[in-house]
């Protein structure tokens, strides 16, 4: 219960603050620090960030929900983010999604019972030329086919 930035993160944020025109502009870096610390953004953390930046908590909540990279709840060890924007949708995202659902036995927004995988759909990952794509944690995987998905998931176990 309760959230507080670590000393280290606070120092880093103070250093970053000098680069921005206002404290409010530190919103995304501050949220990234929260994600690094906890793996997700709790309601307590939203209050702490809002207080730190001097903005209403509602504003922080709006930003957290806008970006699919921030989570309001803990996610699995591997967070699978499948791109659902135009190019990927046209190039077979639907098939990949169906395959992932069946393989993992979970729907979008759910986590496997062992806490290993979370499945999400996200907006454009900026790799339309190699659609369909997905990002697992910080790694991008391109030109997906069911076989390739098997291979990738195998490598993670």
């Amino acid at each position, binding site marked *: 219960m309760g959230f507080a930035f670590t000393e280290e993160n606070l120092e880093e944020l103070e250093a970053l603050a000098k680069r921005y025109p206002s404290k409010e502009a530190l919103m995304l870096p501050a949220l990234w620090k929260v994600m690094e610390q906890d793996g997700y953004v709790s309601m307590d953390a939203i209050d702490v960030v809002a207080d730190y930046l001097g903005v*209403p*908590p*509602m504003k922080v*909540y709006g930003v957290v929900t806008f970006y699919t990279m921030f989570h309001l709840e803990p996610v699995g060890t591997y967070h699978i983010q499948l791109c659902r924007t135009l190019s990927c949708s046209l190039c077979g995202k639907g098939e990949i999604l169906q395959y992932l659902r069946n393989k993992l036995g979970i729907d979008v927004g759910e986590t496997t019972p062992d806490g290993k995988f979370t499945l999400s759909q996200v*907006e454009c990952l900026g790799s339309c030329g190699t659609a369909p794509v997905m990002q697992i944690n910080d790694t991008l995987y391109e030109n997906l086919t069911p076989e390739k998905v098997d291979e990738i998931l195998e490598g993670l176990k």
Partner: protein
Amino acid sequence: MSETLGRKVKISVDGRIIEAEEGAILLQVLLKNGFEIPYYCYHEALGPDGNCRMCMVEIEGKKRPQISCDTFVEEGLVIHTNTENIRKVRREILELQLINHPVDCPICDQAGECSLQDYYMEYGLYHGSVEKGKKLHFNKHLDLGRNVMLDQERCVLCQRCTRFTTNITQTNELGIVWRADHSCVSTLPGRKLENGYAMNLVDLCPVGALTSKDFRFQQRVWFLTPTPSVCHGCAKGCNIFVDHARLKYHDDTIYRFRPRKNPDINGYFICDDGRLSYKALQTGRLEKALFEGREIGFDEAVRELKKSVECTTGRIVILADANLYTEELEMIQIFANRIGAWLYAPLESYIDEKFADEWLRNAMRAANAKGVEKLGIATTMPEIKRDTLLINFNHPVADSLDVRRRIDFLTHAEGPETGSRADLTLPIAVWSEASGTLINIDGLEQRCEQVIYPSDPVPTVIRWLEAYELGERCIV
């Protein structure tokens, strides 16, 4: 822009030449001159936001249609508001709005005063060209607290509500969350609206997304007659519309109060306590005169009143409610002089510091406190001896006074105790059933016309005292 604002320039709108201030918001100028321009996000109190795209007009020399809320008046603008192209643009924007909008107008409280419904009829979107897939569904009854209910499916995301809590009340409870077609208005999880002006959100909402818990499902708006009046909740004197109706099998009934624009007093808004104060006007009312615990008619009541007053040898003290209209107070003043009574309207008992804030809620919770002062009525508490005859015109302090003989003129029957303690209890009309003037805390005098005409009206203070003067039945 601000330095040029104020210079009068001429612009042409649909062939009509109109004069406007340079730098003024074009939409505002068009609306003021009677042009019908559809819009959601713009509101006089909140300013333009430019997100709804409904207020498009054609401006000669500009390639594409422009939103008139983000266009500023300059000399020689030539504008067309209703060309075939503009109608097409509006129809297309509506079409996008309607992709996920539920068609639940038959059960929607906003039906009849809904911008979406009105514009749909005006711009004739009878066949959409967007393929209608399965609509997205959101929460249809989210209780935001403070009597405000949110139907996220009906929302057009104009952000008037979020701008109200951000800019006007500065309480920041509302925001837009998620994105694209999943965007919706929300509070923080587990938190609610926390300001005493929240019900204004219901008026601000151009569609049926925000509805009042108090008014929803109560009455169809097209049956309501809006009568202008003034709120009696405190001495601020906020201007309101009293929405009422006399429907089959029912007496004239008030269904809601809404704010009425008055830049000198309340701007566009009223507080929630004032808004809900209509309820007290039609509950717990005293309707019949009581003499020694038994109901009596008007003529007999006047005779008993006369008898009591004329047989009194001791002092007579009159207490008058500072919510009464100036005309009623004047009449009481004349009455007091005639019978040699001491007249007081103690103001101290109306002060409620907890109610007050810096905006519209005033600590003086008597609508006509200034009227009392203007008439020179004593505002201190009188000393009352036990043999005094107390004549009380609905003053709240009277209940705590211990006198042997009293006559009460009351709007509300406050339990049997009060009724039995007074020798004579006479019902008087509430403010919505009478007319007169009020002077608000800032000294502004406002006239209130009678709003409600009950089938069986309760006499007003003036009617009682006129009858007393005449000593016989007063024919109305």
